[in-house]
């Protein structure tokens, strides 16, 4: 008994002593295995147009678990598109920079694209296979100069709780959408669908019309060529999209005067949705990215939180389209300092886990094949392949996008008829 007591006391003392020891290092990210000297000390700068990029900064912290002496920072460039070339050739060359599909082939950006490293180089060992093939653009030589880190899409935020409350199902076809809108109107909802409508940029009219227009062009290569060339003859292809958009307004699904109360195309759209009385808020995926942070900023949502999701707008009886387009892409400046460590960071970042993590923090659509990890974007994961369209793969040019945006906005606002808009194709600024 005495011996037992002595041993117990001694063990207690040992436990006390060992408890004074240091904490073990935290578990590091599984899967990634560093190949460079972990004590490497250097700076890596990522430049972009985002005001802030906390999702990326969180990745910096994770990367520092492997390379604690690597100082990573994100720098927002003012007038990004115009100063990028200057910055890349300047004194403080960034290691990684935001890049866009439209930069490729654009003479203005030849100096920029010439500095983009080929990220498909097997020596870099980037796991590009984790990204949806439709999002990866290859140049004429088959090189990948840009790696998407987020994708963009068009759809509507759906207040699932409200649907449940009103005993309605989230619509998956055009007919169901009409019926649901009718039902909501019958229950006193002035505008079952809403969206930003004050300016053409990010207006709901474009969000509704663009997918249908792209889908129409996808079926007609000739029309696509004409449309890309801003040939007025291609204007007729906008008709189905414009008619559907106009029908939503004229049919009372969207109350334009209610929408006009939304002052900006981002925060106010989200806060209006969080008021809780909007069954469907039409917006782009970029807007959805602001929802997470603003949940706490919305007094109404804080008081009465609800379940919501982002889904394709069911503009046909077959359902909606998933316009899968890269939002932000990363390119590596091959003229930067510390190129090895930069590529090591890219190898770390381009993985299911890290890209999904970033998309989750930013609440943007992940570029990886797995869309189900974020329940908000889960409906897009259920869209069949034949209704998933990648404009970049299809060859949609940026100038085409502006035509349908302005046309839809003006038709939606009642500033012109559909026919007028069709006839003006190619002339919208």
């Amino acid at each position: 008994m005495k011996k037992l007591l002595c041993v117990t006391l001694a063990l207690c003392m040992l436990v006390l002593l060992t408890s004074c020891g240091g904490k073990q290092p935290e578990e590091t990210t599984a899967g990634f295995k560093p190949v460079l000297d972990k004590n490497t000390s250097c700076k890596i700068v990522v430049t972009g147009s985002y005001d802030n990029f906390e999702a990326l900064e969180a990745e910096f912290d994770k990367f520092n678990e492997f390379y604690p002496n690597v100082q990573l920072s994100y720098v927002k460039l003012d007038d990004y598109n115009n100063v990028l070339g200057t910055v890349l050739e300047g004194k403080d060359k960034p290691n990684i920079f935001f890049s866009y599909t439209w930069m490729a082939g654009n003479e203005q950006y030849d100096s920029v694209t010439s500095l983009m490293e080929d990220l498909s180089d097997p020596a870099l060992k980037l796991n590009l296979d984790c990204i949806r093939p439709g999002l990866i653009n290859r140049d004429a030589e088959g090189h990948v100069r840009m790696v998407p880190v987020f994708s963009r899409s068009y759809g509507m935020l759906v207040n699932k709780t409200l649907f449940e409350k009103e005993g309605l199902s989230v619509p998956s076809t055009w007919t169901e959408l009409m019926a649901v809108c009718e039902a909501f109107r019958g229950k006193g909802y002035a505008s079952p669908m809403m969206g930003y409508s004050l300016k053409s940029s990010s207006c709901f009219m474009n969000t509704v019309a663009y997918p249908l227009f792209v889908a129409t062009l996808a079926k007609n290569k000739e029309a696509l060529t004409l449309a890309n060339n801003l040939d007025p003859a291609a204007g007729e292809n906008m008709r189905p999209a414009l008619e559907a958009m106009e029908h939503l307004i004229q049919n009372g699904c969207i109350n334009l005067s209610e929408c006009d109360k939304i002052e900006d195309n981002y925060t106010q759209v989200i806060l209006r949705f969080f008021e809780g009385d909007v069954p469907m808020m039409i917006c782009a995926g970029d807007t959805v990215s602001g929802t997470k942070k603003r949940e706490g900023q919305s007094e109404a949502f804080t008081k009465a939180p609800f379940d919501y999701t982002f889904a394709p707008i069911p503009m046909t009886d077959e359902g909606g389209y998933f316009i899968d387009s890269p939002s932000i892409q990363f390119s590596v400046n091959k003229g930067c300092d510390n190129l090895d460590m930069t590529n090591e960071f890219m190898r770390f970042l381009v993985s299911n886990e890290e890209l999904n993590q970033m998309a989750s923090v930013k609440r943007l659509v992940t570029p990886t094949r797995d869309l189900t990890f974020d329940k908000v974007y889960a409906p897009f994961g259920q869209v069949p392949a034949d209704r998933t369209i990648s404009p970049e793969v299809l060859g949609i040019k940026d100038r085409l996008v502006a035509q349908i945006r302005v046309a839809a906005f003006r038709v939606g606002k009642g500033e012109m008829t559909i026919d007028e808009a069709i006839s003006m194709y190619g002339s919208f600024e």
Partner: protein
Amino acid sequence: MKKIWVIVVNVLIMVAMLTFVVFYSASESRNTTQRQTEHFENTAIVLEHVTENYLEGEQRICDVWARYINMKGMTIEEAVSFIRTSHVLPNVSAHIVYLDTLSGLSTRARQNTSDNCSVSYARMDLLDDVSWINNDIGKAINISRAYTNPVNGEQSISFCNHITLYDPEAGNPRQAILLRVLPLAELEEKWVFPQEEFESAELSIIDSSGDYIIKGHSFKNSSFFEFYRSYNGTDTASTQNLFEKITSSTGSVAILNSRGKECILAYTPVAAAGGWTLLSLMPMKDLNVSTENWLLIGFVSAGLLILFVFDLAVILSINKKLQATAKEAAAANKAKTDFLSTMSHDIRTPMNAIIGLTAIAEKNPGDKESVGENLRKISLASNHLLTLINDILDISKIESGKLNLSPLTFSIVETVENLVNLAQPMVKEKNIDFNFRVSRFEKEYLYADQLRLNQIYINILSNAIKYTEPGGRVSVDMHEEESQNPGCVKLTYVVSDNGIGMSPEFMATMYQPFSRQTDSRVNSIQGTGLGLAITKQMVDLMEGSIDCQSEQGKGTTFTIIMDLPVAERQREEMMLEPMDMLIVDDDELLLDTAAETLASLGVTADRAGSGLEALRMIKDRHEAGRDYRVAILDWKMPDIDGIETIRRIRAEVGPGTAILLSSAYDWSDIEDMAKEAGANGFIVKPLFRSKLYDKINSILGTEVKSVDPENDYSDLQGMNILIAEDNDINWEIISALLGMFGITTERAENGRICVEKMKQAEKGAYSLIFMDIQMPEMNGLEATGNIRKLADPWASSIPIVAMTADAFSENITECMNAGMNGHIAKPIDIKLVIKEIRRIREEGKS
């Protein structure tokens, strides 16, 4: 107190100490953190002053440029040219942009061009609203947020002023903004915390809405407030309060950074730039001193644990030793109790005999034979009692470490004779076959503590006899050898018996006091159980060795080997005249040693193993006309004994051969018979060289008249001895005993009287003095000293022999040192007294 409680108390004290250390450390840590935090805040304030001075300095330059441009009414080209020539800093540039178009000229050419100095701010929101630029030059610091320099792409800040330019095309003044542009990288390099201990601190400046003007690396997001919200989950109201506090006051707050680590954020308004706040962020762990505190706690814990374990080990060890000591003490106590019990028994037994036999003798004074027998038994019991007392005293001295040796010159021959004499009664009583053989005794006189040597030999021998059953055998072999030590001889003493032997268990403890071997066959053994312990101690003290081989039921052999110094005094060269001699003994070994000893005396002796063989050899010699001159016959022999052999020799051959009867036994009973048979003398075994020399010379020189001078006391007649004795009974005893030998005595009641008597005595009045030691008025030692100082040479040299109960060797030494000539211990043995008298007289003659 029980051991468990000692442990519990120890543990409680340790826990209390550790708790104190932990709390004290935590308190100190808090205080230190608080002090560090205050220091950090103060440093931030100092830095704010530095920053303010810097900003003011930079703004002043911009102000000077603006004033000059305004004053001169310059065109944009002139203004740019003026600025180019007025500053030389390589990395600083200036931009002048028209307020209406937000485009203008830079003092430095665009990248990759040599002369394109155009600059435009139209596509960035920096100058969309210029209300933050004070219209009055010199009234405020007009610093921009960090932005991308459109000319070279560097992240920069600008100090700004409104200026008015002259537009030559319109011929009108035109409003413009002057920007003094500084690269942020250069600023960040300079703009660091001044204190080394805050090297991990990072700085930022935010405007009133939380947007960074200058952003440190650990600050995330584009707005500090967003950064705070993202990683610090607090409610909206608290967050808003904090933001208001940060942007309006000086202080610090703990926040979590993007890695979830606790940091200290110091904030202070930048006074010169309205609405700006300087933020300093540093990980909390870099402020804390807790690492050292844990080290201290760990160290104290380890120390206490070690102390605890050490104390526990020591306590356990001490307890173990105490238990062992207690066990030993208990065992010793038990042994002493047993000893006392034994002593009580052992003392009472002879005392019972003494008292009982005395009572019987008193009741039968007329029965001379009975009285004599009783007195003999009383004497035996008294001797045993004396041995017992001596043993007790010896062991007491051994245990107290006070046993000292008192070396004296002595005769080993006499020692052995004494030994034999002492053994004889016991041998005779138990009818033991006793043999004592000596050989190679070259040196008779040795220098050692004779008393202790005697004691050793007697103890071993008496034990052998004691533990041998009647009819058994005891033999002693003793011889001298050359010693490794110069001036010494190696004396080996081997005693073998075929007695009860000893068990291995007993042998393991046989040298411990109060141990006695018990055996049902020898159930009446008398002894103190101290003999072997005393013997061992004494052998050790004399640097000798003692070895024992024993087997239960078969017997025991003790071997004692000691190196003893040889005395200066030795016998003169002893050589006998050549003669024919016969030695007769049934002991082959004795025949060998005796023949060897005789050979060393110059005599070649024939040997016979029995009486009949001796008779035949003597007859043969006689018939051949060559009689042996001397024959030495053993008494006890198997076929016919020595007496019968003598008788037949005398009858069949005649008296031609002188015959010495040898024996280790007491021959007092056969003395008359031997004489009657025709023995010429007796010689005691062992047959020492000197003894043989003396005896053979003696029987060849004179006819045997009195074969044993020890029984002839005529030489003592007429002696007068002065006895200094204060005790009446002792005086009466010694006086009476000496009177029995025809010696007259006078008494001195103490030392002083003794000295007085010697002063007054005529020459030859006393043959010697027996001096008691402990006496009133003057003790024996002092009296001896005084006598030795007397003027009369006879008186001062008179032999003085101590007769005292102070019987230890140191007492003897003390007596000798005082000038005495001998020592007799009380109670006295009259035989020893007579022997001592004769020795003194012999020495006087020589």
